[in-house]
């Protein structure tokens, strides 16, 4: 209630009780002709220069882009690098061994497709991702729920998970080969290590963000703790969990190729190492493109699933 004191204090008006002065302030605001209040509040205002206005302003909403322009830009983002590749390759600026032409890459691709190597390698890599990523999700989602819902769970797991998360999964490869050998087990283990900690922490965050009011509302409607988890926390967290899975699926897909580079008898990563041995850069390029396209497909699938599940969120 001492809002007026700052203006009046230096002019002897500080003697007025704050409340009365505030009332005078209000009265001034309500009267169009401003004599008394202006005198009370604005001893210095007449001397002020007009406030400068800036000429350049932000456009907070941004400008919409017409659909055709958007598609043109999307096409350009793929076609321009492709055109550059064609030009550089066609002009023989770089030796074919280092930068194969698009035609050579296409030929390598169709050859691998025809003799079945591409399909079997892709299936081998996808199988490993399915097992490793699937196992990681099966561990991390319940663990994330415990961390997100209980303070004890948070205190117990956060330090360990937080530390392990910063150890690069690829650095575990030598150790896992010593422990588990060169077979499938070590590759699945790499994927689990690479995904489980991140996915746990992200799931815990999503679970923590479920509004407490919804849990309270469920309790006042008669739900038990278990029912609150199943009927409120789970459905509310599910879209966020799928978001986390989408991010971590990309990591898993990268990691499986890394694991196959080091030690494997099959898979897309193995195919790259083999090609390197015989300087088949066209094959390496072809496999890289396939890896990228499959990753994109996984991402789109999970996004479609997430959008279906999360229709309710604004």
């Amino acid at each position: 209630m001492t809002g007026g004191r700052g203006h009046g204090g230096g002019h002897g008006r500080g003697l007025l009780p704050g409340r009365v002065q505030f009332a005078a302030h209000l009265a001034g605001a309500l009267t169009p002709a401003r004599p008394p209040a202006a005198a009370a509040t604005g001893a210095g205002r007449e001397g002020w220069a007009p406030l400068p206005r800036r000429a350049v302003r932000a456009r907070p909403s941004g400008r919409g882009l017409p659909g055709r322009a958007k598609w043109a830009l999307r096409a350009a983002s793929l076609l321009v690098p492709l055109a550059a590749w064609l030009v550089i390759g066609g002009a023989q600026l770089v030796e074919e061994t280092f930068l194969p032409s698009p035609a050579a890459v296409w030929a390598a691709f169709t050859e691998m497709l025809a003799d079945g190597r591409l399909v079997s390698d892709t299936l081998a890599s996808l199988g490993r991702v399915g097992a490793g990523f699937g196992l990681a999700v099966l561990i991390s989602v319940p663990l994330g729920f415990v961390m997100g819902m209980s303070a004890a769970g948070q205190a117990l797991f956060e330090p360990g998970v937080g530390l392990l998360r910063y150890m690069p999964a690829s650095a575990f490869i030598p150790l896992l080969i010593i422990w588990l050998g060169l077979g499938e087990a070590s590759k699945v283990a790499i994927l689990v290590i690479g995904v489980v900690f991140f996915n746990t922490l992200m799931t815990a965050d999503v679970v923590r963000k479920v509004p407490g009011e919804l849990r309270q509302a469920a309790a006042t409607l008669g739900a038990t703790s278990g029912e609150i988890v199943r009927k409120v926390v789970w459905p509310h967290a599910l879209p966020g969990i799928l978001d986390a899975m989408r991010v971590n699926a990309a990591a898993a897909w990268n990691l499986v190729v890394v694991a196959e580079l080091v030690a494997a008898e099959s898979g897309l990563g193995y195919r790259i190492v083999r090609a390197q041995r015989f300087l088949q850069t066209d094959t390496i390029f072809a496999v890289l493109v396939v890896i990228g396209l499959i990753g994109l497909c996984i991402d789109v699938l999970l996004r479609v699933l997430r959008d279906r599940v999360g229709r309710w969120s604004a």
Partner: protein
Amino acid sequence: MTLALRDVGKEYGRLRVLDGIDLTVAPGEFVCIVGASGSGKSTLLSLIAGLAPATRGTVTLDGEPVTGPGPERGLVFQSGALFPFLTVAENVAFGLRLLPLPRADRAARVEWYLREVGLLPLAGALPKELSGGQRQRVAIARALACEPSVLLLDEPFGALDVQTKEDMQLFLRQVWLDTGTTVLMVTHDVEEAVLLAQRVIVLGCDPGRVAAEVPVTLPAERPLEIKRTAGFHALRSTVEDLVRANMSTR
């Protein structure tokens, strides 16, 4: 169906929020609790709902001590707290689905309450598609579907615009007349309290306590125009003065 509070107190560490609250709500009554900010009126409601334990005294419903939340004390939040991933009908059915109830019986009950709150055409809509007033109607229907002994409302219309608020006030009064449910409502809006309640409890501050109790001596039939009558003005002024006189001095 009698709700009784005896010498109820609540402290958070050293901060005493409520002290020595004695309050009885009779079956079928409509009681409003008003008070300035800091009078602990929302805390009081959460003690009755069982969402927080009282540090002193007892809360009983029909002689049974309240130990936790339960559907016999339905609570309506200011935000509505609807489950955003469920449709309107599924929200109303939430409490019923937890009970061993034949599907047809459940469907009939959900339909009855949706019709009562005027939202049958929106049964399949999601909460994000509703207006603020519609959301509160769903929240009220959801609590009522569990047939609570007492319906608790925590500033249920505080976030609504004035016209919607008036509609909702008439609506709540009608629901009370239709269902005969005991209603205990917390509000900071004195006019709302006088318009709706049979009895207004004024809480004082530092710590929260029952400062006064004002019986609302208005006819049972209360259209909005009643707000312009002298009797209404007098009551409203009385309660407003009591709230001001018991404001926080901090």
